[in-house]
């Protein structure tokens, strides 16, 4: 026994402690508990992995039967294989760093203990999601992280926008979960089990479905769940709004870990997907579309966190593209590197926001390079990483994905390259607007404390060298065989060139000739406005889905069904009872002789009936 349960149990203990008595503890104790638990969890992961060795096959620990009902038998089982190991390291490692950062970032916020309790709870659920050895246990984590996401987006719940964003995230995720649960039902009906091992063993000998079939349905339904959790078209709309939460939350949940759960789930279900090429195609195309769409929106946004949020959506699209073209290892690789540099981007953005006392608008920034040099330095590392400049983290994973895409369909590669250029462009734009030129705001920027930039420095190192040092695809080779064929240098050069081009264009537009960007924007006119307004997708959903439901509920369900039918039944019953009671009340005179008279009358009636019945029978 390696006591895998300790990994999620430690953050859960932190949640329990801070959630119950945190209010009475001094802030330092709350911080200590909150940070120590993920760190201990991380150390326990390291210890477990070192003692488990190479992990060529999955290591499973079975604890107890959770649900046993007829053929359904769900155990609380934890499983570690190489895929899990990668995710565990990312979740606990990045999670610990972000907890540490949050201690500094949240120092002056109200509800300090509450924040960390939620954050630890999130860690617990995320680790359950990753460790669970069956789809239902995974679903527990899946729902749990959704809950924590809701709680943390709505952390500033007195702000209406935050509360609304939280609700939006929850509801949109619920739509995705609907697909996930349907997939679960389908799997149970077909395979009689939700255990990864049993399901995959049942799927493996099945023929590959070239036309839509059972496995395609399961795969697509699972992917519906993934689009909700990992913010893909059409359910991505919640993620940009989720930036209402505190920045460490954006970094941990909405960039590094939770939103990658969908990718993890798809990679985990690789066997199913490999038997359903149609579903793979859908995944790839949705991923690609999301990547392009979100990148274009990201170019136009002025809120620094919104830019990074759309960047996250776009990068997640990349990951699904990878999965869709069969390069699951590359997808997970990108999950890892993206966790490094996107967490860094968000935390760096948080540091900027912290320095500017809450300012998030890029137009109110500028020239911060000299005022907050450490933040600038670490953000530069993230910048080169996400732009795909070799040999930094983003380059390796993005390259793997693009090569796999080219192998699958060359046009996907080209779209990917354009997206890569756009990615480099919008990040550069944000960097230039933020750190170069003249300071346009009216705050007094100050550098963040060590507890904040310390984790940033670690993440910066990971962003620079993490991709080169952690060769995830090689590590995952037993699960997902490496693609045959070497790197074609031409393709690599093109994608790198695209990144450089993006940076260069941004440099020209925002540093050399500021103002040119605005004139281009006005030249594009309507299209720019459309993109700036996020393609009016929110408005579209509002008009197509939300309003009909609200109006239908209001006019039909409320006024007709509820008021008319349900209330009518209830009130009718009451009226009936009152009417009958009114009649009966006349009998209840309180005068005992009246009662006696009625009793007599009743018994006489009985006698009459008796007489008629018996006399008639005679």
């Amino acid at each position, binding site marked *: 026994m390696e006591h895998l349960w300790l990994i999620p149990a430690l953050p859960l203990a932190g949640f329990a402690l801070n959630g119950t008595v945190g209010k009475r503890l001094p802030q330092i104790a709350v911080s200590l508990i909150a940070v120590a638990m993920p760190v201990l969890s991380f150390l326990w992961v390291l210890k477990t992995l070192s003692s488990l060795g190479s992990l060529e096959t999955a290591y499973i620990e079975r604890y107890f039967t959770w649900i046993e009902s007829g053929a359904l038998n769900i155990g609380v089982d934890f499983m570690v294989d190489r895929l899990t190991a990668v995710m565990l390291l990312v979740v606990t490692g990045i999670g610990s760093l972000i907890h540490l950062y949050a201690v500094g970032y949240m120092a002056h916020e109200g509800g300090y203990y509450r924040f960390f309790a939620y954050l630890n709870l999130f860690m617990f659920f995320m680790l359950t999601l990753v460790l669970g050895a069956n789809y239902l246990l995974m679903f527990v984590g899946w729902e749990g992280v959704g809950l924590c996401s809701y709680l943390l987006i709505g952390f500033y719940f007195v702000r209406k926008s935050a509360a609304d964003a939280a609700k939006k995230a929850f509801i949109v995720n619920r739509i995705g979960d609907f697909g996930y649960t349907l997939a679960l039902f389908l799997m149970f009906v077909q395979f009689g089990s939700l255990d990864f091992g049993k399901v995959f063993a049942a799927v493996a000998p099945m023929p590959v479905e070239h036309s839509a079939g059972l496995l395609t349905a399961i795969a697509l339904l699972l992917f519906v769940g993934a689009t909700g959790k990992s913010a893909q078209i059409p359910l991505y709309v919640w993620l940009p709004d989720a930036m209402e939460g505190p920045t460490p939350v954006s970094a941990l949940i909405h960039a590094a870990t939770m939103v990658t759960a969908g990718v993890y789930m798809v990679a985990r279900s690789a066997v199913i997907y490999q038997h359903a090429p149609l579903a793979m195609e859908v995944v790839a195309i949705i991923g690609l579309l999301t990547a392009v769409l979100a990148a274009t929106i990201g170019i136009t946004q002025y809120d620094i966190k919104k830019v990074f949020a759309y960047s996250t959506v776009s990068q997640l699209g990349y990951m699904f593209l990878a999965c869709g073209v069969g390069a699951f290892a590359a997808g997970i690789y990108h999950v890892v590197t993206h966790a490094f540099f996107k967490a860094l981007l968000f935390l760096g953005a948080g540091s900027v926001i912290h320095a500017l006392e809450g300012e998030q608008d890029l137009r109110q920034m500028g020239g911060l390079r000299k005022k907050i040099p450490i933040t600038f330095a670490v953000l530069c590392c993230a910048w080169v990483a996400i732009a795909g400049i070799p040999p930094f983290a983003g380059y390796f994973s993005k390259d793997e994905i693009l090569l796999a895409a080219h192998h699958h369909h060359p046009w996907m590669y080209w779209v990917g390259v354009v997206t890569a250029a756009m990615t480099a462009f919008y990040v550069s734009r944000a960097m230039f607007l933020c750190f170069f030129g003249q300071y346009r705001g009216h705050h007094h920027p100050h550098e963040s404390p060590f507890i904040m930039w310390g984790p940033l420095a670690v993440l910066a190192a990971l962003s620079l060298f993490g991709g080169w040092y952690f060769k995830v695809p090689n590590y995952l080779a037993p699960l997902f065989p490496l693609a045959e064929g070497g790197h074609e240098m031409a393709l690599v050069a093109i994608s790198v060139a695209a990144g450089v081009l993006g940076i260069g264009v941004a440099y020209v537009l925002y540093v050399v000739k500021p103002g040119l960007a605005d004139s281009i924007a006005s030249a594009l006119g309507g299209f720019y406005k459309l993109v700036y307004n996020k393609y009016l997708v929110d408005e579209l959903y509002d008009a197509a889905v939300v309003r009909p439901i609200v109006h239908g509920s209001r006019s039909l369900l409320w006024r007709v069904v509820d008021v008319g039918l349900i209330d009518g039944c209830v009130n009718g019953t009451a009226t009936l009872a009152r009417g009958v009671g009114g009649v009966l009340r006349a009998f209840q005179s309180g005068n005992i002789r009246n009662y006696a*008279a009625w009793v007599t009358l009743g018994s006489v009636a009985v006698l009459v009936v008796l007489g008629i019945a018996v006399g008639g029978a005679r």
Partner: protein
Amino acid sequence: MPSSVPLSWYLILSAILFGLGVAGFVVRRNIITVFMSIELMLNAVNLSFIAFSYQLRQVDGHIFSFFVMVVAAAEAAVGLAIILTVFKNRATLAIDDVSSLKN
């Protein structure tokens, strides 16, 4: 004039007495008279018990009316005590004034 009467006459007498008891119960307003009406009803029932006992040539009917008598005695003791208490509290024996069964 026959020398004997059918048993049913006794039963009809019982019914008449019972009906009178009911009438007294319903008509009279004095609580003690009402109480006596109840006793009249009990007596009427006793008569029918004993009449049936004769018909069946069994003594069980006597036992039943004996028990009725016992219960009537107990009832009289408690009932009259209640009447005393009511009178002490309300200074009235009119049953209409004692309608606390309602509200």
